[in-house]
């Protein structure tokens, strides 16, 4: 359950619209069901009151939308940012991808977002309504009584392993500020590292062979903001709309992971949007873990303007050969 309410967010947005601070509001619009929300630019109080939603299903990270929306807006855009979204926000600012002057950021606390697939695993299919109160009360077409679930039991993976309840960027903060959390997010990576190369290859083969090359991971990724992706460019020689075989998919995902290495804030959007439930975030986390290990702790987006270790030369940098030498205890 979220500590801040929909009404509080609407009230804030309406007052900022009224005093002219912002011209529009980037928020979540309610959908057909209680769990399908769509990012939308709200223009006025009536739209907000009718369709704005804030509940346990507002997972979408708005930071990337600022690249296109802030540019086009006539005044400032009000954006609501959960703690993890603020890291992407800073990272995009570091890369000069949107105009900070065009944005009014309101930090909002987040108690973690729910994965509807996990809800369905417990309640079954045919969800008619989900009441996001103290606990989730789920009514389906097939059960006589609503099923009551603790949101903590159905959190998205990225929220179970939440790395920070602290906002690293905002103009204004609603609710209480949280702390950076010592999460267990690298545990799954450590399990993969402990595998033999053959086991690890088989693991990724099994996962990535399901890829349908819809590019949702790339298109939702706040670190992927190239105006023309190399994989969409017929002149690049690697443009491809479909996987020719399962090796090609590994190439796509590994190249993408390398490209965002040091810039990925571990927001988890890639895995959230994957229609095939491929744990893509594990590739990125491996890079983050290695960067932490070889170059010292580094969190992309923690501050604006920081130089990522992979693009910053220091005389203390380890030699490539050292990485190879240490492969057995940190493969």
């Amino acid at each position, binding site marked *: 359950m979220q500590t801040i309410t929909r009404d509080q967010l609407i009230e804030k947005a309406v007052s900022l619209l009224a005093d002219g601070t912002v011209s529009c509001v980037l928020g979540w619009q309610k*959908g*057909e*069901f209680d769990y*399908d*929300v*769509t*990012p*939308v*630019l709200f223009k006025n109080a009536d739209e907000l009151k009718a369709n704005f939603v804030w509940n346990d299903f507002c997972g*979408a990270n708005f930071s990337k*939308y600022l690249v296109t929306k802030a540019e086009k807006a006539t005044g400032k855009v009000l954006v609501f940012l959960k703690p993890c979204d603020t890291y992407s926000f800073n990272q995009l600012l570091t890369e000069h991808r949107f105009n900070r002057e065009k944005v009014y950021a309101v930090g909002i606390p987040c108690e973690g977002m729910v994965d509807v*697939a996990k809800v369905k*695993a417990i309640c*079954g*299919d*045919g*969800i*008619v309504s989900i009441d996001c109160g103290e606990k989730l009360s789920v009514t389906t*077409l*097939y059960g006589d009584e609503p099923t009551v679930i603790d949101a903590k039991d159905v959190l998205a993976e990225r929220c179970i392993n939440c790395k920070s309840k602290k906002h690293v960027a905002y103009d204004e903060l609603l609710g209480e500020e949280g702390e950076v959390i010592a999460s267990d997010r690298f545990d799954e990576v450590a399990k993969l590292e402990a595998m033999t190369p053959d086991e690890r290859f088989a693991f990724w083969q*099994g996962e990535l062979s*399901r890829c*349908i*090359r*819809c*590019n*949702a991971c*790339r*298109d*939702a990724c706040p670190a992927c903001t190239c105006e*023309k992706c190399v994989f*969409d460019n*017929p002149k690049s020689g690697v*443009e*491809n*709309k*479909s*996987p*020719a075989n399962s090796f090609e998919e590994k190439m796509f995902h590994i190249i993408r992971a390398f490209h965002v290495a040091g810039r990925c804030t571990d927001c988890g959007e890639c895995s*959230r*949007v994957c*229609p*095939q*439930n491929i744990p893509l975030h594990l590739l990125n986390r491996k890079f983050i873990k290695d960067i932490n290990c070889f170059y010292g702790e580094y969190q992309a987006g923690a501050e604006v303007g920081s130089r990522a270790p992979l693009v910053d030369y220091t005389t203390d940098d380890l030699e490539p050969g050292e990485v190879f030498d240490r492969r057995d205890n940190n493969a």
Partner: protein
Amino acid sequence: MRKCSLNSINSVFAEIAKAATLYLPVDGKDGSAVYTKWEEGKVWSNALNTVRSPKDFFFPQTENLMAFKTAGKNIEIIDTRSESEDFVIFGVRACDVKSFEILDRVFLSEPVDTFYAARRAHGVIVSVACTKPSETCFCGTFGINPAEPAGDISAWKTETEVFFRANTEKGVALLSKIEGLTEECTDEAVDAQKEKISAIMKKLPLKDVTTDAFGGGKTMDYFNSPAWDELSQSCLGCGTCTFVCPTCQCYDIKDFNTGKGVIRYRCWDSCMYSEFTRMAHGNNRLSQKERFRQRFMHKLVYYPENNDGLFSCVGCGRCLAKCPISMNIVKVMKKIGGENK
């Protein structure tokens, strides 16, 4: 009507698999169902539907069309086709069976796509009635009855039994192969199940979604609607909706230089992609709004215009479940259709 006990369904699968390759939905590691080649130990999934639709069997995501080899000034053209084996797809839902009719109208009309036609000729479809539709289901909108699925054989699954009815010659032939494992029965149990399903259909949240506002001849009614701006504003331009859709049929043809020759292949394409239908002069749809509009106008206006009013959507609900921003055809139909009734 014939039936077998649910406990003995694996021996039915084994018998079918003797004569043809058998594919059926099997639960994958992540819990979602995937069409998988049957072998001993594979269990028929209880899932309502697969993430990827069975269109893959007739229109695979990539397929080689031909190869070229050059020697001096000679070019040898090599036919790379290998579709010659019979196969059975078991457990196809009513919506997906209907999608084959929509694909057929594209690929089997002149000039016939012989790659698709060969696969259709070799494939036998065993459909299965739905017992627990999802909240995302809206096949009823397109006149599809999930209790009465088409296909070469229709099947109904109850708690304890599986019922079969052959609808075509192919179906009769397949059913005769499993005659020893099934027994003749009345329609009673199946009729009872049909009634149950129709009662659920009346409770589905999307039961009132209607195509009334759409169809051929409506192009100019909707093409310039301001609603497209609003609907498409947060579209990521990914291809999830098109690739999980059982009726999306667009593809691209490309040449791959192997170093020793050329392989010409085709692969699914998505109207959501910036390079879709790019031609020498450039792109004809430059904004995501235009691409987004194309997808829905194609399904709701252009396709029915060219195909006797048949809509190019079957209400399977995959795009509702999978779109990263939860924008989908139901929202489009309600918004665009609702404003223009």
